[in-house]
């Protein structure tokens, strides 16, 4: 359990983190989402005790990071944005050093390291020098380091940056798996990543939390209620036929492709799943559907909206994800 209250960090006149408060419950996977320089890393550095807060408190499982740093840090595993590995050690030496550093008892060490090595899959490089490892393996060794000592809370700063697509998928699966036993906080500037891995998302911009929602809430809003349909034939007739249903709020031509096909944007009412309805309606009218896809881009756009909205007007800070999406859809 992590409790952050009124956290502020100033670097001279620059306010990196501006009075943010949040709570992360046991067993949750929470994502910090924000553009580069939003204050994600600074917040994480304060949570791990690497930086001190200008104001505010951080409690890890009830221990204040300033008053009882050793106890609080024992609850934490931290993977910084650059994996903190020593090039001139082998993976084995490195992990043993981490065990020493975190005060892991000799008796339980072997079993624990075995476990970790299996979890993050670094068995094949265990005896190699860290400096000869690829970025992906270094990242995994960094993660292994965070897992040493079996901390309840894991803080992962952009864990997938610099990895290739296959490694990204593996890393996400790994984080999901770790989330079963640990409380995880991770940061990212990639929306799809956060929504793929996290239970809850906090959007951070310019040192403030601008929106927070569960991933389910996010994906529902994106969901299947907004579809882009490409049809062949009379697009206007298709719109007319679709518009009559109670579940469909609107159907309008998004573009006339000029080759006898039309893109139609169909919006469901009250976030209803309208895919079947679209199919049966148009099938009945003999209008072939060439493609049908949910408009997922909206999430990214909503994200940008939240952020840009803040840039334009600081008063609209309370703007939430929902409003962001609605605005988009209202257009």
């Amino acid at each position: 359990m992590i409790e952050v209250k009124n956290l502020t960090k100033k670097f001279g006149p620059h306010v990196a983190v501006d009075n943010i408060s949040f709570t992360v419950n046991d067993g949750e996977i929470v994502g910090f989402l924000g553009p580069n320089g939003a204050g994600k890393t600074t917040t994480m550095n304060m949570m791990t005790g690497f930086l001190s807060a200008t104001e505010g408190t951080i409690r890890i499982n009830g221990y204040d990071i300033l008053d009882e740093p050793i106890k609080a840090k024992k609850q934490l595993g931290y993977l910084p944005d650059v994996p903190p590995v020593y090039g001139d050690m082998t993976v084995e030496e490195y992990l043993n050093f981490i065990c020493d550093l975190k005060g892991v008892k000799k008796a339980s060490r072997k079993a624990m390291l075995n476990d970790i090595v299996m979890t993050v899959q670094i068995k094949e490089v265990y005896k190699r020098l860290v400096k000869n490892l690829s970025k992906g393996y270094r990242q995994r060794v960094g993660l292994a380091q965070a897992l040493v000592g079996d901390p309840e809370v894991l803080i992962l700063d952009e864990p997938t940056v610099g990895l290739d697509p296959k490694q990204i998928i593996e890393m996400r699966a790994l984080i999901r798996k770790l989330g079963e036993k640990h409380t995880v906080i991770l940061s990212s500037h990639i929306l799809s990543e956060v929504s793929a891995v996290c239970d809850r998302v906090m959007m951070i911009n310019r040192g403030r939390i601008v929106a927070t929602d569960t991933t389910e809430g996010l994906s529902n809003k994106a969901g299947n209620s907004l579809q882009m349909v490409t049809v062949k034939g009379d697009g206007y007739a298709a719109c007319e036929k679709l518009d009559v249903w109670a579940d469909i709020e609107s159907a309008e031509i998004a573009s006339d492709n000029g080759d006898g096909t039309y893109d139609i944007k169909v919006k469901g009412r009250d976030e209803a799943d309208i895919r079947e309805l679209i199919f049966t309606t148009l099938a009945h009218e003999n209008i072939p559907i060439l493609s049908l896809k949910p408009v997922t881009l909206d999430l990214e756009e909503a994200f940008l909206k939240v952020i840009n909205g803040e840039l334009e007007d600081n008063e609209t800070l309370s703007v939430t994800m929902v409003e962001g999406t609605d605005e988009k859809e209202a257009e």
Partner: protein
Amino acid sequence: MSAIVKKELRTYFNTVTGYGFLGFFVLITGYFFVSQNIVAANANYNETLAGSMIMFLILVPVLTMRLFAEEARQKTDQLLYAAPVKVTDIVIGKFIAAAVLLLIGIAITLVFPYLLSRSGQLAWGMTFVGMFGYFMMGICLISVGIFISVLTDNQIVAAAATFAAVFLLLMMDNISSSAPISVGSSVVFLVIVVAAIALTVYTSTKNITVAGIFAIIGYVIMGVLYFINPNIYDGVIVKVLSWFSVLSRFENFYMGILSVSDVVYYITFTCAFLYFTVNVIEKRRWS
């Protein structure tokens, strides 16, 4: 703490640093042993120690340049400071590792006095006191090197600055002997020192009032002292500078005298610089 000591020692011997240090240490000591003892047919091993002290110029930077600068460059400092370990333990751990390497070097060179004792009368007591003083002086310089290493994330800069600092400390006797001793120069010197302290207070607290109070109190004390007894200002610069002369403190050890005040001096000096190092790290977290 032991984790840090073990890790630093491992790094010394995983890289060329440890072997390079020991090799160079034994080589230079051996050279002075040949010239001061063998060729000169002299049974006083402390001559060799005094002569070979010059190599601290090279060896202290070699030992200390990497310790904190490399952690900062590799970003592994985040690992250390986020681990459940006190900053003090980290600093002391690194210091102990460097001191241990120096101790290993000194232990290897025990073979030289042993050779002397085989072929003549060697005053073992005097030799051990000399070696002890030599070690104490070494750890003083190491603490300075560690302090410099924490100020930068560039090993080369750390090495060059440490070289300069060790050079100044070893030359301090020469510098202080040519320093002005008049009351006027002392007052100017102290005014600058007080101003520097006030400036440091200002940069660390960002509070002009507190810094101003510091400066005013300092100048008031100076003024009062001047009216009570102006002679107190005689040769202040020399006194202050010679306090930093780690070399002059070695003289007693060289003569085989184990003087408590010199041991205390070396320990105080070392602790002060380690304390500064801890403070720099702590302050960085708050800035």
